[in-house]
């Protein structure tokens, strides 16, 4: 049903993404594509994959932004995926009940057997997190790797989303953000984790950690080299070149 769970889910599973340590390598996006192309949401169709204009469904996109100017400016790598919102308008606009928020852990999912492919949910998401599969005729999105996190055939350490397990910079963290004592909740509290577009009221579960304040840059050393004081031909060359 597209009605949201009556009581807030006891668990609020989600990701915490550290914009300070993300190196922008796209390993999370590739691991996501690799896992999900064969998992719950398979196939994750690519159209014209070897042609001039390839396009395909991905659940995770890694942007790079610049923020601020000059010495205070920063380059920030920015992975973007479904935030599994507490107020997911993508779920409530769905006319068929294919989009739903799981009552037990708050994960937002699409039932590919009842989705009619009207795309309205993608319009309702300000984060651009849902991507339509032209070939399958249904909407697809991040599942938080429900086929990994609950997969008893995997070793316990691997029961995390593919993007988290692959991140070489340890910039992605997975856990229960509804439990204030969980490791991810403590991380958010310590580092001042924030919501994306809080003014729209979607109340995302996923949090982002801001880049740490940068240590003051060392002042460039004073130029103490003596004046050249050349004369004659070399002095003329020096004056011409210095103009």
């Amino acid at each position, binding site marked *: 049903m597209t009605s949201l769970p009556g009581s807030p889910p006891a668990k609020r599973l989600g990701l915490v993404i550290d914009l300070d340590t993300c190196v922008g390598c796209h390993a999370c996006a590739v691991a996501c594509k690799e896992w999900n192309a064969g998992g719950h949401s398979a196939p994750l169709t690519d159209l014209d994959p070897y042609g001039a204009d390839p396009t395909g469904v991905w659940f995770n996109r890694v942007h790079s932004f610049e923020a*601020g*100017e000059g010495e205070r400016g920063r380059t920030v790598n920015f992975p973007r995926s479904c935030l599994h919102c507490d107020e997911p*308008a993508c779920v409530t606009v769905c006319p068929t009940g294919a989009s739903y928020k799981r009552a037990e852990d708050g994960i937002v999912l699409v039932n590919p057997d009842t989705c009619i492919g009207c*795309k309205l949910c993608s319009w309702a998401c*300000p984060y651009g997190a849902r991507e339509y599969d032209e070939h399958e005729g249904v909407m697809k999105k991040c599942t938080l790797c429900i086929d990994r996190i609950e997969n008893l055939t995997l070793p316990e350490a691997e029961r995390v989303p593919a993007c988290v397990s692959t991140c070489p910079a340890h910039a992605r963290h997975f856990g229960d953000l509804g439990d204030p004592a969980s490791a991810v909740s403590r991380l958010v509290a310590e580092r001042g984790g924030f919501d994306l577009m809080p003014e729209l009221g979607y109340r995302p579960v996923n949090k982002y950690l801001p880049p740490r304040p940068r240590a003051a840059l060392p002042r460039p050393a004073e130029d103490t080299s003596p004046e050249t004081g050349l004369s004659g031909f070399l002095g003329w060359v020096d004056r011409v070149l210095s103009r």
Partner: protein
Amino acid sequence: MNPAPSVIVFTVGSGAGYGLLAALGVLAALGRLPPGAGFALASFGLALGLVTAGLASSALHLGHPERAWRAFSQWRTSWLSREAVMAAATYPPALLLAALLALGGPRGAVVPLGALTALLAAGTVACTAMIYRSLKPIHAWANRLTVPGYLIIGAATGLTLAFALLAAFRAASAWGAGAAALAALAAGFLHKRAYWRFLDTTSGPATPGSATGLGALGRVRPLDPPHTGRNFVMREMGFAVARRHAEALRRVALAAGFILPAWAVAVGLGLGGAAAAGLGAAASVSALAGALVERWLFFAEARHAAMLYYGAASA
């Protein structure tokens, strides 16, 4: 937003069809429709034809049209589902009303059926508008002008069609329908001007700074794109129409959608007879063409918050 032809044809066609249906329902309840099967068939045939063609156009462009019936289930939360329920609920009273009028049924049944048909028709258009009104990421739609816009343009196109039909059947109520059409066309003209002023002078609350949470560091702008080709989000939400094209199309929408049809209806009212029917038909064609341009712009000029991640300065 990508102006998909199926959605534009659907909203304009169903808007005009429900507008005509509402006009017919009111006039039937007032006892002002010409008697006989000919008018009932022509008028309700046209209204339900427009509505059905629009609904079919929208359903056939789904990823899975064979599952469209599922869209009736989520009326508790989804305006799209409510629209589907209202659209389906309008058919029985409209068909029954058409049959009663064609066969000369009792007034006692025509009055409530006419009122019910008009209410459900207006309600369906309001649900269509609420689909757009409720989408917070799209500032051009999530505002108080959206619902009046859909209702007024549905009324303007529907009443112009009603005027043409009534004039063709030499009905005295063509006068009332014509006058109402003029009022709706004038309201549409003023509404679109107000809407475009709103669009040109305001933007949504989200910014590149709030979309990334990096606003405190300073101005946020894209450095490297996440992918070299275009993806679904860019194709669906990233459609943008050039400013000068939009301005030219706005003038076309105003001229074809409101000014020309109002002129034709006014002249038709003055001349009467066969000229009124001909001018009414011309006014209807022009109003529908103008509404198609208006609806294309409604999509093409709407910007989506997700594009803030792809370099949009505002949404």
